[in-house]
Structure formats: C-alpha cells, structure tokens
C-alpha cells in the first residue's frame, strides 16, 4: 500500500478496525471527504466535540489542580530552610584488624559498625524522648512551627496533640545512613534558618549523648559481669581450700597416697618374710622326724603370727574399722582437684575481667564530624519543584492507570 495523496469521499473503509469503530451516536465533523472524517478515526472527533462536556469538565479539574498546585508551590508555600550535617561513628580498631581488606569494595567492620549505630540513631533521633529533650516546652515548639498567612496548610496547628507534634517533629528531620561509607547524614528543615540550624545542632548533641550512654552502659555491664565472675571464683577457691584444710586437720598432714604406698610396701615386706619362714619351716620339717620338735614349732609359730599380722595390716588399710586409705586417697585427690580448678577459674576470671576493662576502654565510640551544620543562607527551593512535579505525577498516575483501567472496564 502506498501513501494516498487524498482519498476524498470515495475512500471506503478498508481497515479491519473500521467496522468496530462505527458506533452509535458518533457525530461526523467537518467535511466527510477529508481523511479525518473517515471511519478510521471517528473517536477523535467524537471526543473533540461529541462528549465535549465531560472531557471539558475533567480537563478543567485537571487544569485547576495543576494551577492550584503551581500557585501553592511557587507562590503561597512558605520558605523552607535546611541544615545538613554529616558524621561517622568511629570505633578505634586494634592494628591487627585495622588492616586493609583484600578487596577494596568489601565493607570494613568499622563501616558496618557505624552503619549499625546509624540505624539505631535513625530510630532514636525520631523518638519522643529526643523530641522532649530538644523541645522541653511544648508551647515554644508550637510557636516555632505555627502556620503563618498566607500558607495556612503547612506548619503545626496550635490545637495539635502530642501524637501530631511527634509526627510533625519526625517530618522535620531525616537521618540517612550511607551504606557504602557508613557516614550518617542528618538533615533538618524548618521555616527559619535559625530554627533549622538550632535543631540540627540539638540533634547532634542528642546523638553524641546517645553514643556515649550506650558505650558507658555496655562497658558498665561488661565490667560488672566480669567482676561478679571474679568474686564467684574467689568464693569457690576459698571454699575448696577450706575443705582441704579441714580434711588435712582431721587426718593429719600425711599424704594418704604416700601412706597407702608405704602400707602396701610394708605388707609386701611381710609377705616376703612369710615366704622365707615357710621355706624354713618346710626345711626343718624335713630335718626333724618329730613335727612337734621345738625348732619346728618355733618357726611354725612365727609363720602363723606373720600371717595374722599380714591380715591385720590389710584389714587396717582397707577394712571398715581401719583408716580406709583408698577412700581417703580418693577424697584427698578430689579436694585437691577442687582447689586446683578453683584456682584456675579465678585466674581465668581475673584475666577476663582485665580484658573486659581494657576492651571497654578500647571500644569507646566517637562521633567524628565530617561536615558541621551551617546556618542556611537562603531558603531551600528544590521542595517547590519536587512538590509541583509530585502533583503532576499524581495526575499522570490517575490518567495513566485510572484511565487505562476505565478503558479496560469499558471494553470488557
């Protein structure tokens, strides 16, 4: 198909859409011979004039909305002033961990730490406590941010309650932790340069106080825990030592293990002697025909006595009526083990307490100012464009999405 110079009058609708386009009530505009009055685009003209009333009204509303937005954003709207500061929460690292990372892009632990603190600050600085600290007098807060003519919409009405005040306070500040650098950007806005600057400074003081308080609180908790552990270990050592002393007082200073060893060797000696005597007795019995001969009876008596003595010694060592050296040795060993363990526990607890004290001193965090707040020299103008474009955005969304949905519903 080549371009047609003109298809006056005789142009039959060849386009497949054409039959669908013919609708009841569509009015023909102008000369039917022109290309625009063909069946392909009757909707254009029908929209232009057929339903002019409805379109006009929606257009009027849209135009009025845009006009009102423009008047408010560029005319009536009060000046806003912004003060911005940037800081980082730094935690000194020991030289071993402060070394550079293998890949430069990996976030170091100090960045992560600052980022984490920044997220805490993000919540804390928007809390009611901070609002009360910065504006202890509610009346002065209301007065500072009271609406002023001709802009009666922005500001804090005089009859606003605590929730409204807190919500308004939150809107006046933005705490944005920077993911890559760990820096925290604090932006405050107000209706005068002085207020914005003062609010930023007050919030910085609150941030400083928060960081210090958190550090001190953590350090104090860690120190208290470590000291408690030392005291506990000391108590245990004292108790174990006292038990060992009591045992030794009761059973003397002798070493049960040594004594047991001596008794064993003593019995072994007796048994050795018994073996010798038994050999001698057997020899005498072979020499003398009479088994009751005095020489034989003498040795036999010695053997019996020695056996009795050995049995007595054994009973003394392990029997119920004796000293029961096995039990005593076990008990002594346990008590000495307890004392040794308590001593090591105390040593570990003291080392941990010492480390905790040093760590708590080392891990103190500091707010390092990267950019101090400056007194705004002029009002912030970007909000006007942003607000106006946002209004246009609302219109575009309503037209784009709403109109699209309506068309789909109508066609469905």
């Amino acid at each position, binding site marked *: 198909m080549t371009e047609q110079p003109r298809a006056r009058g005789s142009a039959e609708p*060849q386009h497949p859409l054409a039959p669908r386009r013919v609708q009841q009530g569509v009015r023909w505009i102008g000369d039917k011979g022109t290309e625009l009055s063909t069946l392909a*685009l009757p909707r254009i003209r029908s929209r232009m004039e057929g339903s002019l009333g409805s379109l006009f009204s929606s257009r009027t509303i849209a135009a009025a909305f845009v006009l009102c937005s423009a008047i408010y954003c560029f005319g009536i709207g009060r000046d806003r002033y912004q003060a911005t500061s940037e800081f980082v929460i730094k935690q000194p690292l020991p030289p071993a961990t402060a070394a550079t990372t293998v890949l430069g892009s990996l976030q170091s632990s100090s960045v992560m730490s600052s980022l984490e603190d920044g997220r805490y600050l993000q919540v804390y600085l928007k809390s009611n406590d901070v609002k009360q600290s910065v504006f202890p007098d509610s009346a002065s807060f209301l007065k500072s941010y009271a609406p002023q003519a001709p802009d009666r919409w922005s500001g804090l009405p005089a009859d606003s309650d605590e929730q409204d005040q807190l919500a308004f306070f939150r809107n006046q500040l933005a705490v944005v932790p920077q993911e890559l650098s760990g820096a925290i950007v604090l932006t405050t806005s107000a209706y005068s340069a002085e207020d914005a600057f003062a609010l930023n400074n007050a919030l910085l003081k609150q941030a400083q106080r928060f960081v210090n308080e958190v550090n001190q609180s953590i350090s104090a908790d860690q120190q208290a825990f470590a000291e408690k552990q030392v005291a506990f270990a000391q108590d245990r050592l004292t108790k174990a030592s006292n038990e060992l002393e009591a045992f030794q007082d009761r059973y003397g200073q002798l070493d049960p293990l040594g004594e047991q060893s001596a008794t064993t060797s003593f019995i072994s000696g007796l048994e050795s002697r018994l073996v010798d005597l038994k050999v001698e007795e057997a020899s005498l019995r072979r020499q003398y025909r009479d088994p009751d001969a005095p020489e034989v009876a003498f040795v036999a008596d010695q053997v019996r006595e020695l056996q009795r003595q050995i049995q007595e010694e054994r009973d003394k060592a392990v029997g119920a009526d004796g000293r029961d050296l096995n039990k005593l040795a076990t008990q002594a060993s346990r008590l000495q083990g307890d004392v040794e363990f308590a001593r090591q526990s105390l040593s570990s607890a003291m080392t941990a307490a010492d480390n905790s004290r040093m760590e708590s001193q080392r891990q103190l965090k500091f707010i390092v100012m990267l950019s101090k707040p400056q007194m705004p020299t002029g009002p912030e103008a970007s909000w006007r464009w942003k607000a106006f474009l946002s209004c246009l955005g609302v219109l575009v969304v309503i037209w784009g999405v709403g109109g*699209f949905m309506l068309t789909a519903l109508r066609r469905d």
Partner: protein
Amino acid sequence: MNSAMSRVGMRLREGLDRVLLQTRIVLALSEAEFVLRSEKGSFGVWGVLFEPFALMMTLLALRILVRLKSTDLLNPVIWLACGIAMLYMFRKIGIKALTGVSKKQKLFFYRRIRPLDTLLASALIEARIHGSILVFVFFGVSFWNWTFQIDDPAMILIDFMLTVSLGLGVGVCALVVGHRLPIVKTLTKFGINRVLLWTSGIFYATYTLPGPMRPYVTWNPLLHSVELLRHSLNTAYPIPGISLQYLMVCSFLSCGFGLLFYFLNEALLLSDD
C-alpha cells in the same frame, strides 16, 4: 501593531490546535492498538495488563527459588518490580519501534497519521501498562506491609518519562538506520533482548558490585533508570556511579538523533518494505 499581535495570536492558536490534534491522533491510535492487542490475546482486555504481570510474577518466583541476593533497604518485591518494569517497558518500546512501522502501513493511508504517531502510540500504551503494573505492585506490597514510602516522587516521574523517551529514541534510531543497514536492526534486537537483561541491574544492585566491576555495567543508561527509581523510593538506597544527568543526556541524545533521522527519512518509512 494590533494586527501583528492578532496574527501572532492566530499563528499560536493554529500551532496549538495542530499539537492538540496530533495528540488526539496519538491517543486514538493508542486506543486502537489496545483494542487490537486485546483481540489477539487469550484473556481479552485484561490480558493486555496481566500478561506482563504474569511475567513479572514468574521472575519473582524464580528469584524466590534461586534465592538471589537483594537488598534490605527496599522490599525485595518492589526492588525486583522496579527493574523488571523498567527493562520490559524499554524493551517493548524499543522493539515495537523497530518492527511496528511495517505492521502499521495500512494506517498511513490516512495522511494525518505518520509513522511517528504509531510509534508514540505504542510507547504510550507500553508506558501505561508497565506504569500500571508498577503502581499495582507498589500499592499491593505497601498495603501488605502497611508501610508506604516514596522519598522522591518527582524523581520517579522524571525517571519514568526519561526511560520512555530513551526507549523511543533508541528504537527510532535503530529503525531508521536499520532501514538502510538491516544488520543494525538485528544487532539492536540482540542488544535489547540479551545484553540489557544482564546489565540493567534487575538481579543485582550496583552498590553490591565491587568497584572495579561497576564501569562494565554503568555504561547502560537503563541501569541508571532502574537504580534511580529504587533510590527515589528510599533515598538511603546507595547509587554509586549512577546519575540522573547521564540518563538525561542519553535520553535526549537518542531522542534528538532519532527524530533527526526520522524526519530525514520519513518518506522511506512510508513506503512499503
């Protein structure tokens, strides 16, 4: 003096009428395309909207299955929806510009309708479809989580418009140049379908890439568009190496060259392929 003023007024009025008439033509063509598409699709008029929506849901499901790493600064669904909506809008606009003119030859029977009008109409309907999807996903997630955060709505508007004009500009450039050098059309299609998918930051955030890797993806203006959209939802979302100026320059340059090539070669496009 008065007659001169009235002549200028008349000229302005005539110019305005022409612009309004051309706008109405584009709107009407857009509506006609909407109807054609709804007739072609299986699900009627709602299919036009829900087919891209289903694609987005598929990619979201894929993300959940593969457990791709995203960021905790934005809701993962919104984060992914931003990338997919912008990329697919750009892709559809660009590819439609490449192929759409030859399919609309019958419409050029009407002298008022020019190839550019059909391209604008396609761009308009794609922008509305993908904008609607973005709005639905955003409001759906916001209502689900009961948190509503748009830090910079003006930026969203600008970013969206620039992306539409970028797609249109790239498509028109490739269309006109491709008429003379067909290989350009093939290369552009390949670039839009393959290369852009992996360099537009749909599945990753720029700031999670190591510094030396970033220049390999930040040449892509669509990455700037996607990341700026995410940044405008939450200003804490970091955008290293991303700038609105770059997107603006790319968009204006592509549009400018596209229009220049178009008006120099309009007659070529009007003729049958």
